[in-house]
């Protein structure tokens, strides 16, 4: 049994927006995620979901504790190694899509692969493949502002997946979508999780979305209040 894919040990995070003011966003989080899991972080807003995802992805630093991703101690890495880690092993999907506005859908999807140093042909093949899975093959040559929210978010997922990461972190990916697009997107992510074997952790407070997950973690006030496997 592979229990050590993602290990979060006693992670805490304290913000001090002003002097003498401290906000404890996370305290002593202990979690373990297995390879290939489809996990959801839920909880009310302000419970620390985004902060935890950011710390796992190395976008934010923990005030205490360690994060081990596939044997690598994320919390110890410098900027350069973190960039490489994100480029090669982690895909991000943001609530606000965050596509690069000046690049077409295809270029957005291929961007990470180009960073990884793949040839143009390889990039092209992979983007076609991913786009087919996410049903956006027709939209590849459009700019982000020519796409609907749901379409943009599927491009964002495609971008996250294209570089064949080990882990995808998605922060409230459906928050800006209508329920139909949201359900659609979740189905596709689930499919990717199964077909490509990518571990996916996403956050949400939409019960419909949460119900799709196989591992549910509930946060409240920066603490884990529930942690159960549903499969």
């Amino acid at each position, binding site marked *: 049994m592979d229990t050590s894919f993602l290990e979060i040990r006693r992670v805490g995070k304290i913000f001090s927006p002003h002097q003498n003011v401290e906000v404890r966003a996370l305290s002593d989080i202990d979690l373990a995620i297995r390879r290939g899991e489809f996990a959801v972080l839920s909880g009310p807003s302000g419970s620390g979901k985004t902060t935890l995802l950011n710390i796992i992805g190395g976008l934010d630093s923990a005030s205490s504790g360690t994060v081990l991703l596939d044997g690598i101690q994320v919390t110890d890495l410098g900027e350069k190694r973190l960039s490489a880690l994100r480029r090669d092993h982690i895909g991000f999907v943001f609530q606000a899509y965050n596509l690069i506005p000046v690049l077409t859908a295809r270029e957005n999807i291929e961007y990470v692969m180009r*960073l990884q140093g793949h040839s143009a042909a390889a990039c092209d093949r992979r983007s076609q493949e991913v786009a087919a899975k996410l049903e956006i093959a027709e939209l590849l040559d459009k700019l982000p502002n020519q796409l609907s929210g749901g379409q943009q978010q599927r491009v964002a997922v495609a971008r996250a997946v294209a*570089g064949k990461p080990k882990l995808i972190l998605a922060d409230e990916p459906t928050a800006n979508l209508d329920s139909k697009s949201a359900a659609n997107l979740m189905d596709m992510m689930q499919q990717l999780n199964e077909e490509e074997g990518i571990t996916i952790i996403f956050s949400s407070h939409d019960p419909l979305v949460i119900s799709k997950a196989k591992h549910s973690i509930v946060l409240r006030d920066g603490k884990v209040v529930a942690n159960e496997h549903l499969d």
Partner: protein
Amino acid sequence: MIFIHFALRNIRAYAVRSLVTILLLSLTTAMLVFATAFMDGSHDKMLSNAVEIYPGYIQITHPDFRAKPSLDNLIFDVEAVARAVAATPGIAAAAPRFETFVLFAADEKAVGGMLSGIDFAAERRLSRLASSRTTGRYPEDGDGNQLYLGYELARRLQVEVGDELAFVGTGADYSFAADNLEVVGIFRTGLFDFDATAAFVGKDYFDGVMAATNYATHFIVQPEDPHAADQVTAALNERLGRHYVAESWRTTMEGLVQAMLVDSIFGYLTLAVIFVVIFFVVLIYTWLTVFARMREIGVLRAVGTRPGQILQMLVAESALLALAGVVLGGMIGAGLAWYFHLHPITLAMSEEVFKQYGLAASSMPTTFAPLIILRDMAMMFVLAVLSTLYPIIKANRVKPIEAIHHV
């Protein structure tokens, strides 16, 4: 590389910034290129005018003459100097001159002036005396007491071509010298002081009345290539030995050379004030576009782009803009420099000003020097890219998480 591609897209996306940057940089570059061409051109013209009208590119004198221009420090062997000059390569023409100050007296008036004995034939190649003639004729060798007189001096003496006047002066042997002269020609170089004091007679005649045979105050040497004046001067000095010294116009006209330098310095200082503002505006526009893209930069960082790569991308962007602006401006500036090189600018308005400074130049061509233009363009390019670096580096320092949440 993908970053160049990216940069091009962003140049299109932020059209206002791109336009303003290119516009300002081309304005700046055109201004610098043209100002340099104009300053260099007008200074060259003024200097060459001042040098070529009479003083000449190279002068040979007794080593003490400049410090103490007395009759004791003359060239006492014109033949020897002439031989040394003839043996030096790169010389187009040379001739001795003997300058002395005398009192000219006409019927009504007596005015002090400079009477010089020169070789009229050789001077055709050494100075612009012949071409500055306004009335009468240019004297020839073999003329006797025929005088070639400056326009302003003639006016002050109230004499015309054909009139006679007398001079009183000191001969080379300190003897009293005086004679009657006949005005055969009047010249006007445009250098007011010179036209108001100078008068010329043939050296043969001069040597007779002034007891100056084989003597000269100095030799004028015209190099084949005026730009090689310094090298020719050095070669001359080697051949002349210790008894005589050759000096190029850079030494003999130091004041004027420096005056042009001062003029350039003030010119560039003024440009600098304008350029500081322009580069500030370029910086501000870079700042605005880079910070408008803060979230984007955050996302790029989040998906694994290294700060160095983002730097590359942003610098590529401003370098492309700078290149476009500089090339455009360089072309405009070079075009103007070329046009005004062929069709010199006439500053009728400032003629009085120039005359006052003893500069005879009413039409001033700009220089057209491709290397200088490229140098100016390169300088503007570097400055332009440098002025965009601050916002780029500053934006790049922001942590990805902050960048993503930047509003």
